[in-house]
């Protein structure tokens, strides 16, 4: 499978936008160097990983409105039991968190396949369940983790290398092999046309379970990154809902089509930078960050609108 020209040009334009915003923001700072870059990367990692998970699911023709809740649950799990533990134990905890996340994802995929209820409805319901579970485990903000474990994400010094690796390694080690494998192809196949995928021998329900499990894996990574970076966890629906909405916005800005079957993960990761820069730059000018929500909303609509107009050239239904 080759990356399409459309996807390449989309990634390129998002990249240019990010560079432009980056230069703009850098000018507001007294100095820009490794430390500032580290701050930015640490700020976007949880959302970037979540947006990757959401993108995988949207590419496969689904949508997961519970993905933020899933990340928050893993965040809570690893932070609550992570207070004062050794490095090894923190690692074991993180691994357990990932397994739980994959299991939740697989279960969600199974429910959607078996019940034939729409993805939106199932994940709407599971988002309640997962937030409930998170609240059950820990009813308020709190938790911590091992210091060395946290340095896996933040790096020992003020270097930007560790956060960069946290962002890039999942792409290289998880997504790239998957993308080139049979499973990855089946994600794109069921996303663009379920019947055609079925007729060409794809086991649609198994592919869908794998799809949601992979999304769950990224949501789990995002939750663990929250623990590693913030050393705390809050079990609130407002946090998980905001994360879910931002993950959808990032996926769409990153060139993933909601119709399914189109897009990759690099674009959404870059798009989270755009979502990070808008409020930061406004704040630099002393403008109420509430305006950033307006801008973000308008930007998302405009991007989707342009994308839609480009795609619909030649189609006449109105």
């Amino acid at each position, binding site marked *: 499978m080759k990356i399409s020209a459309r996807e390449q040009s989309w990634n390129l334009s998002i990249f240019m936008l990010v560079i432009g915003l980056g230069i703009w923001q850098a000018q507001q700072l007294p100095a820009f160097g490794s430390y500032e870059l580290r701050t930015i990367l640490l700020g976007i990692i949880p959302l970037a990983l979540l947006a990757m998970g959401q993108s995988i699911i949207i590419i496969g023709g689904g*949508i997961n409105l519970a993905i933020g809740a899933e990340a928050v649950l893993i965040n809570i799990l690893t932070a609550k039991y992570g207070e004062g533990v050794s490095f090894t134990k923190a690692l074991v905890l993180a691994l357990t968190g990932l397994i739980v996340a994959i299991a939740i994802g697989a279960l969600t995929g199974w*429910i959607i396949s078996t*019940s*034939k*209820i*729409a993805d*939106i*409805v*199932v994940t*709407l*319901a*599971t*988002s*309640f*369940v*997962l*937030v*409930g*579970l*998170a*609240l*059950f485990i820990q*009813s308020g903000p709190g938790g911590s983790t091992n210091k060395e474990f946290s340095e896996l994400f933040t790096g020992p010094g003020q270097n930007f290398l560790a956060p960069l690796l946290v962002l890039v390694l999942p792409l290289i080690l998880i997504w790239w092999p998957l993308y080139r494998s049979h499973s990855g192809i089946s994600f794109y196949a069921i996303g663009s046309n379920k019947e055609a995928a079925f007729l060409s021998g794809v086991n649609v329900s198994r592919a869908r379970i794998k799809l949601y499990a992979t999304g769950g894996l990224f949501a789990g990574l995002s939750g663990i990154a929250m623990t590693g970076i913030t050393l705390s966890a809050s079990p609130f*629906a407002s946090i998980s809902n905001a994360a879910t*909405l931002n993950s*959808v*916005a990032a996926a*769409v800005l990153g060139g993933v089509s*909601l*119709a399914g079957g189109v897009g990759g993960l690099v674009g959404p990761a870059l798009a989270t930078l755009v979502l990070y820069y808008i409020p930061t730059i406004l704040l630099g000018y002393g403008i*109420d960050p*509430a*305006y*950033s*929500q*307006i*801008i*973000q*909303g*308008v930007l*998302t*609509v405009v991007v*989707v*609108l342009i994308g*839609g*107009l480009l795609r*619909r050239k030649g189609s006449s*239904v*109105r």
Partner: protein
Amino acid sequence: MKTKIKVSRSTLGLWIILIVAFVVTGIVDSYFFTIPSLGITLQLAAPLGILAAAQTVVMLTGGIDLSLAMIATGAAYIVSVKSESGLLNSLLLALAFCIIVGGINAIAIGIFGVNPLIMTLSMSAILIGVFTVGVSTFLRGSSRMPEILITMSSGLILDPITWPLLVWAIVSILVLFTLHRTGFGRLVYAIGDNAHATRLAGVKVWQVQLATYISAAVLAGIAGIMLGGQSGAVAISLANSYLLPSVAAVVIGGTSIMGGIGGYSGTIMGTLILSVLSYLLAVLNSSEALKQLIYGLIVLVLAWIYSSISGQKS
């Protein structure tokens, strides 16, 4: 013929679920069967029912409107702040707000082909931004609801009939009549079933969508004002927690999220089931965690039961 049997079987299913929920709640808490308690349950169900009516109409066209909660909050906020300069004036302003927002949604979705989920999510974000800024600038003032609207939202006529219940009943009759007895209603079902075929039959699909999203926004505004009246004053998060239940009520009631199938009578049942359920959860004095968990599970199970008895993809 076959579809008719299926529909009646699923309606029967909804009745059974409602009755079971009703009886179980009554057994757990005998006060539930008293007239004042019924009145309060129905009064609290009314705003959800009206918000779910808005969602039903949109979902029948094959769309979804996730900005309804913010439209509701916005309308209530405008009414509460501007009511000092006259009630009618403030209501007209809120109406204009609903029409404009619904219109923008519809134009983006119907004419420019933006995905409804993305459009309304973004609209919701935009409105949160606008009102967060507005609270300290152009919408500054007391957000206390005027007395007459508080009465309309929670006043008693004759136990268990309350003013909001009456409003809900009128809205229900209007919605049911429009959907099942008018040409516009048929068009709503038609574009939800097959927008392409409807266009080829000579219908301007975007015009139907325009009317649909605007009426949904106006209904949401009514629901919002009612919620504001029930809580006395309006906060920026007023209707937030009603968004997902509004979708859940529609889905439980058997309206397909793909459009074209279902109707408002099912949604009324869905609303009643959810209301009895939240009463039960409140009575059981369960923690917030347990409430969320059970609520989510029940919505999932009900949707699952519904899709398996009706054999339809919801």
